[in-house]
């Protein structure tokens, strides 16, 4: 007899009497929310309530659990305890899980308040954004938990089984007006530049670049002009005279000459890097002119040496050199012809300029070669795009033919379902078949070419 329903109708009353105990059960299970009364939260609604089964309620809420706690190790847990113990533990686990969710959302909202406070200065007020990794309606749900009456979801007015056909429908969540999040759009927009297909414009641009770079970089080096030190030397002279007039020498002279004596004159000679000055000084020392004729040293020393000593730059050397040369020419010791025509060949700046030009040339060559390589790849990529387009076209055509074939087949035997096998191929008309074959072959060929081209361009 399979008619259980009928045969058990008599016991239905018994069933309902069993289930009438339910009300007691629910009462028992709601005791976990008792702490709500123990901690009256009069701080408006702001203060959340965190559910916890108090240990003092153990015997009342968790009878088996507390009984086991009070047992000795020998008595332990028995098989008969399992069912009730499981329920007690589940109650604890559920409470615990709800609590940690509430705590988490609370911490997140604190974070949000802090963040808002930080950004407050700039913007007046921003709409609160939904918390990450959290469904927007979740919090609402927990608020309901607090209030005692738990509304789990919005009521569906129509009877609707969201799990029909073994596929859960995702639209269960109540619709919310979420602030528009266009971050992803922004991101893709910024990336677009790098991912977009290569266009003809790019080719033109590349060609221009290559042409520009192929030209020789022959920047003429201008003839060397008047040395700046010539102009400067006048200034320096004026300055020196000024210094001399202030009679700073009065103090510096004795110390300087004593220093000279201490260090030896050769050391002094070395302080002049310019060859001409060195030679002159060395000659003077050799002939004891410096020591013997204080006037010479006086004339040369105070200002020049001081300057040299303090700055010790090439500028002063050159100035000195020039002055010496000038005076030598004036006094007829040297001829104008004897003087070197221009700055000596070891011109650092010229060397540097030449080096830079060489570098520029090398870089340019490298650029051109890279650009040409790129140009080749782009040519291939353009071809790839063409093939891709062609393939798409063929794909569409193939789909069309497929649909046509389906239609034709349905017309032939309408009771067959549209996804059945192509069993009556021969009657479908040769022209379709031929067309389909042609298309498929074309597809294969294009696809092969596309793969090759893609590999080639991706290897760059």
């Amino acid at each position, binding site marked *: *007899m399979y008619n259980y329903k009928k045969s058990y109708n008599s016991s239905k009353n018994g069933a309902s009497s069993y289930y009438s105990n339910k009300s007691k059960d629910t009462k028992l299970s709601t005791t976990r929310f008792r702490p709500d009364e123990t901690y009256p939260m009069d701080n408006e609604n702001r203060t959340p309530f*965190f559910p916890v*089964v108090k240990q003092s309620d153990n015997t009342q809420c968790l009878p088996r659990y507390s009984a086991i*706690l009070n047992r000795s190790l020998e008595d332990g*847990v028995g098989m008969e305890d399992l069912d009730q113990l499981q329920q007690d533990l589940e109650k604890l686990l559920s409470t615990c899980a709800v609590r940690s969710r509430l705590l988490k959302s609370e911490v997140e909202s604190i974070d949000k308040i802090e963040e808002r406070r930080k950004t407050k200065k700039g913007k007046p007020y921003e709409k609160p954004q939904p918390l990450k*990794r959290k469904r927007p309606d979740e919090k609402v749900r927990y608020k309901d938990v607090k209030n005692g009456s738990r509304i789990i979801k919005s009521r569906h007015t129509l009877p609707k089984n969201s799990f029909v056909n073994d596929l859960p429908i995702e639209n269960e969540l109540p619709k919310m007006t979420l602030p528009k999040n266009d971050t992803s759009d922004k991101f893709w927009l910024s990336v677009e530049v790098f991912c977009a297909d290569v266009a003809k414009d790019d080719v033109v641009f590349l060609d221009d670049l290559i042409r520009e770079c192929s030209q020789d970089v022959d920047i003429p080096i201008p003839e060397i002009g008047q040395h700046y030190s010539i102009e400067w030397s006048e200034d320096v002279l004026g300055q020196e005279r000024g210094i001399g007039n202030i009679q700073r020498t009065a103090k510096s002279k004795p110390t300087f000459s004593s220093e000279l004596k201490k260090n030896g004159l050769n050391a002094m000679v070395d302080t002049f890097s310019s060859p001409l000055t060195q030679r002159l000084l060395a000659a003077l020392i050799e002939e004891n002119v410096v020591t013997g004729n204080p006037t010479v040293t006086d004339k040369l020393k105070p200002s020049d040496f001081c300057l040299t000593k303090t700055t010790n730059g090439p500028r002063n050397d050159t100035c000195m050199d020039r002055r010496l040369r000038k005076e030598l020419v004036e006094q007829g010791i040297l001829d104008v012809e004897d003087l070197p025509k221009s700055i000596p060949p070891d011109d650092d700046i010229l060397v540097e300029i030449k080096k830079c030009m060489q570098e520029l040339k090398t870089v340019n060559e490298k650029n051109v070669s890279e650009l040409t390589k790129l140009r080749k790849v782009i040519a291939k990529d353009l071809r790839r795009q063409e093939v891709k387009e062609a393939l798409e076209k063929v794909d569409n055509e193939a789909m069309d033919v497929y649909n046509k074939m389906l239609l034709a087949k349905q017309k032939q035997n309408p009771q067959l379902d549209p996804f059945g096998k192509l069993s009556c191929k021969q009657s479908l008309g040769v022209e379709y078949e031929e067309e389909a074959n042609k298309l498929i072959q074309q597809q294969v060929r294009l696809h092969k070419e596309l793969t090759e081209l893609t590999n080639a361009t991706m290897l760059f």
Partner: protein
Amino acid sequence: MPFTADSIAAQQVQECLKSLYRLVHDIEKKRQQSENGINTINKFNSQDERSSFMQTDIKSVYKTAMLQAEQEEELLRKALQKISDIRNIKNERRIQARNAGNKETIRRGAWMKMLLSSAQTLPLFVSKIGEKPPPLCGAVPAEPNYFAKVGDMVAALVKVAEGDGDNWILAEVVSYNHALNKYEVDDILEEQNQKKRHVLSKKYVVPLPLMRANPETDPTALFPERTVVMALYPQTTCFYKAVVNKLPQTHTDEYELLFEDFSYTNGYSPPLYVAQRYVLAIKQKTRLP
């Protein structure tokens, strides 16, 4: 003591029970900490001015409480796992005993009790934060390629002998033939199997949930109100069409259902309670071959 499969199983069970005892004590310690943490929070919150500079302090108190809750949760999960381990061991022994030919003789009344308690002790799924309920948890259907294991309970559409059409009955899987996609199932009521076992195609067999969904944390895994479902009529072993009237509110609650019943004037039975385990998504009306 000989090392029979039974004695080994018994030993394993004993081990589990022992560690369960220890776990209960560990849990109690953790609960002490958690409760203290919550008390601190409540003290904090009951102070009148929750001025802004205290926010960070509150946050750290919350975070501590969160950590404590997590630790407690972990231990609780462990303990519950032990319980389900024990049940699995027992169930395996039962299946093996049956395969060995030891017929269990359970009367109908006892069966009803067992069905009730097995529904209550079905493992409870409490999701971790951000976790989705797995298939066969509450109302979540099985994956398309899923097949029920031997010993699992299923709803099976079988032809009733006396021309009463066909019925979804509660049955137990005996075997599954992968090649034919066919189940061999036993009616849960012993006396019905004396004739022969039912061999059914996969589409006439619906596995029962393997886990209960926790309404407090995973309400999405429950059938929404007004859903038409297939449910075990109380005190019977047959599934009938019903409408969900009320959802379970706690982990121990059952669905409140209105069964389609034309013996009542409005076409529906008064509210009846059915455990999560015996409430299934309705299958499209299918003809028997």
